[in-house]
């Protein structure tokens, strides 16, 4: 088992859960530690229950695993809900003026902080938070100077007195813990590495910027809004035009207009907004204008659970807009991949002049992870495909926008160039862009144009990497997942091996086109296959069956709004290998 340490901080929305989370993240990453952070919250601005978990350690931390070493409840509700998550060696730091402790498990240290004795509450309402962070650092074996520099940064926009007050509060908490509480048995190590800490939303926005996005537009929708926020904040330095539009119908169409004018254009939304974009996606396909749409999935249907994760949009993506058309759908595997995928999908959509969909979810979009900054390549290969950007000598063959070619790709021209005027259209058209749908529908031309567009699928499939099986060959069990389950399956495989079950992992990143034959080859000799996904109906399992006729031995599905933890998969695999069931639906133990 990889060494790690998890801190849980909970309270009502508005009580200041985010700031301690940011401070811990900075302190951990600057010790050269990896971290993974996940915030469980509700669609409420004040009140409710927010629970942030930060898990850290010297190796990669693919998940927050549901286990806690330190609990910091900022209110009674958090104490009551989560004290039971602590086990031997764990500790709970709480404000003893306000919060009654429950009965902890054996070996759990209760650490009451007499906040009113240590702080002037009339001056600082969130004094308990800062005291608790100070105390926590002492117990983790982290020297105080680390805290001081992070507080300086955290409150850099505030007055000097605010910084000084917070530093002295943290110091008081630190000293109080040193005198009164037992330190953790495993002091947090340090390494020479330094990692960037970022959310999937920031990663996708930055990846888009690296890919050369010049126009971004969106309508706010959780959990995709972080992309808009990054774009808006950095628009002027990155020279990206960012617009907030009246609805997602306007969003996709505005992005298509900008893309047609010749820039790389991107937008992001969640399932409900994507439903509104569906018709626009068809326009992108039919007019052959590349556009990239990010869908950050949340629990549906309809408004669903806006702040909870799910992988329930796959079939919406597969069926978005009517008619047959080439499209690219990819699901990033982790937060670093949220960045890396963007230039790849932009190159494909430019080369093949079709829509591209990045199928992300709340777990990655709003989760935070340490990433080696070398993985954030701002100067990736940019391939704009067959794009005419000037009239050259001014002498050329008559231009046909939808010229029939073997690849199905017809050279695209940037509007504004003399001698290449033409009309693109959502109606079926001939090679010149002239409508064939009105006066006289030429069925031979219609067939030729359909076949031209659909031929692009061959080129796309050849341009993307087929999936690969990770882990030992001939494993007892093969776990198949897509997108964000990469991390949890990776960690589950490690735990399974420790439990004496050999496991390997087939992560799917490119969903459309799907390398069906390659997948069948990889699974041909698999002994026991289980498809793991965060939805009710096994959307990927059904898709894989429709494309390949493959049926797995079993399924692990979760649709309660929370992500899978590694032990959920381990226990499900154990019960399935024992022949108890072919469908496991793990129960989430953290009530948020």
């Amino acid at each position, binding site marked *: 088992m990889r060494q790690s340490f998890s801190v849980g901080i909970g309270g009502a929305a508005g009580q200041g859960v985010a700031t301690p989370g940011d401070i811990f993240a900075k302190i951990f990453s600057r010790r050269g530690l990896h971290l993974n952070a996940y915030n469980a919250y509700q669609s409420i601005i004040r009140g409710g229950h927010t629970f942030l978990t930060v898990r850290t350690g010297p190796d990669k931390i693919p998940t927050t695993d549901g286990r806690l070493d330190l609990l910091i409840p900022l209110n009674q509700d958090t104490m009551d809900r989560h004290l039971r998550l602590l086990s031997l060696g764990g500790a709970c730091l709480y404000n003893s003026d306000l919060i009654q402790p429950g009965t902890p498990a054996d070996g759990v240290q209760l650490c009451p902080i007499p906040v009113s004795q240590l702080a002037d509450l009339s001056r600082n309402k969130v004094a308990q938070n800062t005291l608790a962070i100070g105390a926590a650092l002492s117990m983790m074996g982290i020297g105080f100077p680390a805290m001081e520099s992070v507080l300086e940064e955290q409150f850099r926009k505030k007055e000097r007195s605010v910084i000084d007050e917070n530093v002295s509060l943290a110091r008081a908490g630190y000293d109080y813990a040193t005198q009164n509480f037992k330190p953790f048995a495993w002091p947090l190590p340090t390494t020479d590495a330094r990692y960037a800490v970022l959310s999937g939303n920031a990663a996708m926005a930055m990846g888009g910027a690296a890919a*050369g996005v*010049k126009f971004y537009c969106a309508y706010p929708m959780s959990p995709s809004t972080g992309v808009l926020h990054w774009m808006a904040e950095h628009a002027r*330095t990155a020279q990206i035009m960012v617009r907030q539009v009246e*609805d997602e119908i306007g*969003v996709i169409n505005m992005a298509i207009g900008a893309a*047609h004018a010749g820039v790389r254009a991107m937008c992001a939304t969640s399932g409900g907004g994507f439903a509104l974009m569906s018709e626009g996606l068809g326009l992108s396909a039919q007019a052959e204008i590349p556009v990239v749409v990010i869908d950050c999935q949340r629990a549906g249907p309809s408004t669903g659970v806006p702040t909870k994760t799910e992988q329930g949009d796959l079939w919406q993506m597969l069926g978005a807009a009517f008619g047959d058309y080439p499209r690219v759908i990819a699901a990033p595997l982790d937060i670093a991949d949220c960045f890396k995928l963007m230039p790849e999908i932009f190159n494909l959509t430019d080369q093949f002049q079709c829509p591209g969909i990045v199928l992300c979810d709340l777990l990655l979009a709003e989760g935070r992870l340490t990433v080696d900054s070398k993985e954030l390549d701002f100067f990736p290969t940019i391939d704009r495909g067959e794009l005419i950007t000037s009239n050259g000598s001014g002498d050329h063959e008559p231009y046909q926008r939808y010229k029939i070619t073997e690849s199905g790709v017809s050279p695209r021209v940037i*509007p504004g160039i003399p001698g290449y005027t033409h*009309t693109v*259209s*959502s109606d079926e058209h001939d090679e010149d862009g002239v409508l064939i749908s009105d006066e006289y529908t030429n069925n031979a031309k219609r067939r030729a144009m359909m076949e031209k567009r659909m031929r692009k699928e061959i080129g796309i499939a050849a341009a993307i990497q087929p999936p690969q099986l990770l882990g030992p060959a001939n494993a007892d069990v093969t776990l198949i997942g897509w997108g964000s389950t990469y991390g949890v399956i990776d960690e589950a495989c490690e735990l399974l091996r420790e439990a004496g079950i050999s496991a390997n992992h087939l992560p799917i990143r490119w969903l459309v086109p799907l390398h069906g034959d390659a997948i069948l080859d990889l699974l041909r000799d698999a002994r026991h296959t289980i498809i793991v996904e965060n939805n009710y109906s096994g959307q990927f399992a059904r898709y894989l069956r429709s494309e390949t006729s493959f049926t797995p031995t079993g399924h692990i599905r979760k649709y309660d709004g929370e992500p899978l933890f590694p032990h959920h998969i381990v226990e499900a695999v154990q019960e399935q290998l024992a022949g108890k069931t072919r469908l496991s639906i793990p129960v989430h133990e953290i009530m948020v």
Partner: protein
Amino acid sequence: MATDIVTPKAMVMADYKGKVDPDWCPGCGHFGVLAAVQKALVELQIPNHQVATVSGIGCSSNFPGYIDTYGMHTLHGRSLPVATGLKMANHDMTVLVTGGDGDGFGIGCGHFVHTTRRNVDLLYLVLDNQVYGLTTGQTSPTSRVGMKTKSMPFGNIETPLNPISLALAAGATFVGRGFTGDQKHLTELIKRGIEHKGFSFIDVFSPCVTYNHDNTFQWFRPRVKKLEDNPSYDPSDWIAAMEKSLQWGDEIPIGRFFERNDLPTLHGAEPVLAKGALVKQDIRMPADVAKSFIDELM
């Protein structure tokens, strides 16, 4: 982008002729609007490669196919967001948007209001025939009360929308109304609309000879009265424009209702575009900018 070779030449009507002839019904009002747009472009001498014509779906939205410019025949009701995106990515283009009353005031009405308030620098021409034509004759948002169509065979019971008042209320910086039966006046209005820096809206009476037997050429001709003929009318007076917009019946005003030139256009207000058209900017960001983005995360 590389430099283009441009041979300067005087633009004539034939230069704007599309690849195919219009398939509108004989006598359709839209022929006159197409001719007026082409004439306006000739008179303004705007080369056709510098013009983008964007439309939605409907009879009038077939427009881009009939004029030789960079055309975009988009989705029903979605021409304005597409045109906005195009203009933002390349504000050196002259952007014309055409569509019908169903396209613009029915399915696309939300975009109409928002494009208006954004003051996107384009000319939006609604070829208003007060009926759905391409779907073979149903009631539109501008059909009069009592008008009988296939979708309301016992007569329309809904109050029609007033495009001029709506555009004024939404903050349009140029609002006009034309009549396809008065070519000279319409051409002048279109020229002014193209030249206006900001969102120009022109509602054009363009009778449907097949499905609208109420609001015909014969019905409009004696009623339309040019605002330009009234020397006391001041198109910079918004209140006066709003009052005038409510006039309907025996006398219907056409012409330039309102114009103001003191508000920035959307592209003019965007600092990112100060360095020139987005499409002409470098696709790569400077290395120090990229580094600053990573430093923020450390």
